[in-house]
């Protein structure tokens, strides 16, 4: 097999080309998109999708899924924000609470799926309802803005120098995501946790018979997903002036869709964080970029749906062709 051929076989490579193509199209057809600020905004709104994507990659590799991440993320951001607003707790503590809640719901998912043996769909569908319910018990909640006390947490994702018109903003979050991507890619490929995640997705029974505590690692997969959802909640709070209860359903689809576009096998056993990064980028480009080239908001949903089908079809046709040889 030549090197060129294997590159084309890698869905990540195809995804990267699509991402670049999209960027080029936007650059050519929209002069607004060429602005630094447009890129900044696109990045702003990609962080939480990205974090959810990193997290949900692990359940998807185990051939499971976590449908609770969208409503979960909003729920944690709501609870955290409410505590800041009504109980005057420091923002740092609220962030910690977001993460802890994410881990707790992740743990619940993990126990339901890994220990009690519920189907991932239905288990996380239930926690999706539960988190949506818990979130709706809070009121609409603004987190502190950058200028308010406690607003420092915005700087995790975007550094602002100066103020007003002349302010220079640096998307540090993007580089944070790159670092996280490298870390998680390392975790996936070079640590026990990552290896066993793949093993569980490929053949859970065999993994268990190899003397591995499959239940523990299966639970951990969801805990990690929950942890990232907690992080995503912070990123979400940082870009959304008011976190609104009753929202969040559907946000998980952006992240999960991105992961699939990035080449995770729909039947488990294979996945890559770099792929997730590129895939989620594509979804975000579609989500935030289409209005720039004059397409109304509703087209983005249709196009996202079509892109998802195409991505999975490519995977399937590729496999079919490989099987036929």
């Amino acid at each position, binding site marked *: 097999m030549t090197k060129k051929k294997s590159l084309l076989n890698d869905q990540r490579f195809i995804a990267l080309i699509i991402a670049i193509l999209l960027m080029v199209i936007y650059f050519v057809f929209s002069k607004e998109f060429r602005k630094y600020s447009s890129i900044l905004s696109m990045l702003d709104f990609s962080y939480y999708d990205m974090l959810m994507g990193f997290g949900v990659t692990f359940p998807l590799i185990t051939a499971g*899924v976590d449908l609770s991440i969208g409503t979960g993320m909003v729920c944690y951001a709501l609870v955290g924000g409410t505590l800041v607003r009504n109980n005057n707790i420091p923002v740092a503590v609220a962030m910690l609470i977001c993460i802890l809640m994410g881990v707790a719901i992740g743990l619940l998912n993990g126990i*339901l799926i890994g220990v*009690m*043996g*519920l*189907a991932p*769909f*239905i*288990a996380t*569908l*239930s*926690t*999706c*309802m*539960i988190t*949506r*319910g*818990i*979130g*709706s*018990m809070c009121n609409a909640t603004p987190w502190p803005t950058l200028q308010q006390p406690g607003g420092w947490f915005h700087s995790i994702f975007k550094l602002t120098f100066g103020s007003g018109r002349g302010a220079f903003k640096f998307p540090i979050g993007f580089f944070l995501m790159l670092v996280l991507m490298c870390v998680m890619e390392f975790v996936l490929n070079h640590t026990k946790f990552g290896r066993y995640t793949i093993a569980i997705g490929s053949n859970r029974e065999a993994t268990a018979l190899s003397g591995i505590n499959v239940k523990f690692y299966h639970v951990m997969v969801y805990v990690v997903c929950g942890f990232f959802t907690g992080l995503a909640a912070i990123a979400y709070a940082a870009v959304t002036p008011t976190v609104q209860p009753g929202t969040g*359903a*559907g946000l998980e*689809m952006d992240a*999960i*869709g991105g992961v*699939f576009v990035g080449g995770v096998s*729909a*039947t488990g056993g294979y996945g890559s964080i770099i792929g997730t990064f590129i895939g989620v980028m594509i979804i975000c480009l579609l989500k935030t970029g289409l209005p720039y080239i004059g397409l*109304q*908001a*509703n*087209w*983005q*949903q*249709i*196009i*996202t*749906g*079509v892109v*998802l*089908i195409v991505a*999975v*079809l490519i995977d*399937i046709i590729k496999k079919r062709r490989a099987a036929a040889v």
Partner: protein
Amino acid sequence: MEKIKQNPIVKKIGFNRIILICVLILMYVAFCVGIKGFAAAGTKHLLNTMNYVYFLGFLSLGVTFVIATGGIDFSIGPVMFCCALVGGYCLNSYKMPLVADIIIAIVIGLVFGIFNGYMVAYQKVPAFIISMASMNIAKGAAAVFTKTQSQSWPLSTDPVNGWFRNIISVNGFPVGLVIFAIAAVICGIILYNTKMGRYILCLGSNREAVRLSGVNTKKWEMSAYVMCGLLTGIAAIFFVAAYTTVQPGYGDQYNNEAIAGCVMGGTSMVGGLASILGTVIGVFIISLLQEGILALGLGKDIQLIVTGIIVIVAVYADVTARRRKN
């Protein structure tokens, strides 16, 4: 206990079904005792419950077929909205006759069913992914078509099309309930007494064995999705007959409740086992729960949490029962 389980009538209905019916009755009694004015309102609360039952029932019946094949359809809620929106737009903007709009709505449901079924059965795209995609497409297409306008269907006061409301009730008589009961019986007949149902259940249990028996599994698997699409279209009609207006961009939440009703009734998520009666009871439980919680003065949030917990318990019971059997 064993004796009761072996009783032929109990066996016919299914022991779990009987427990579910008891749960349903207990719930009603508890609401009557626990909520001031619940019993005093007579059938009113029950009639409110019915509004919910109608559309959710059709959705749940539809998704029961899909889950019986071992698949899943997360797109039913948004597709239902898409049907109602497009039909409504034809009514309001093109002034098409109401019957035509109803047919259009149902046809849209069918089209989505055919699309999902084709992709799953013939192209082997995982059902979960395809429903994610068609959910987006349904939302987007409906919004584009209606120009992001919510669509209202005729009220009972409408001089021409007022009869539309008669499909759910005429002078307080719940026509909708009768229609729903008939639909459930038809679904039951289809699932248990026709080739289609037999094949759907068998292929949900062991697809390869059915294929190697010379059965066109692709066709029958697709038929489950088409059935689901058709029932989703009908659900859309009942939704607007009960709630008049649909708004583009939504509908997700009804997926969860429809699937919850189906799973609660004992339809197995791994496929092969499905119970129409169970689905019907499951739908009633969810609907009664929602009315009861509202009557208690609590919000949708509590209902979601309680439903979520009930689903977990129901599915866990199913899983442990299965484990014990093996």
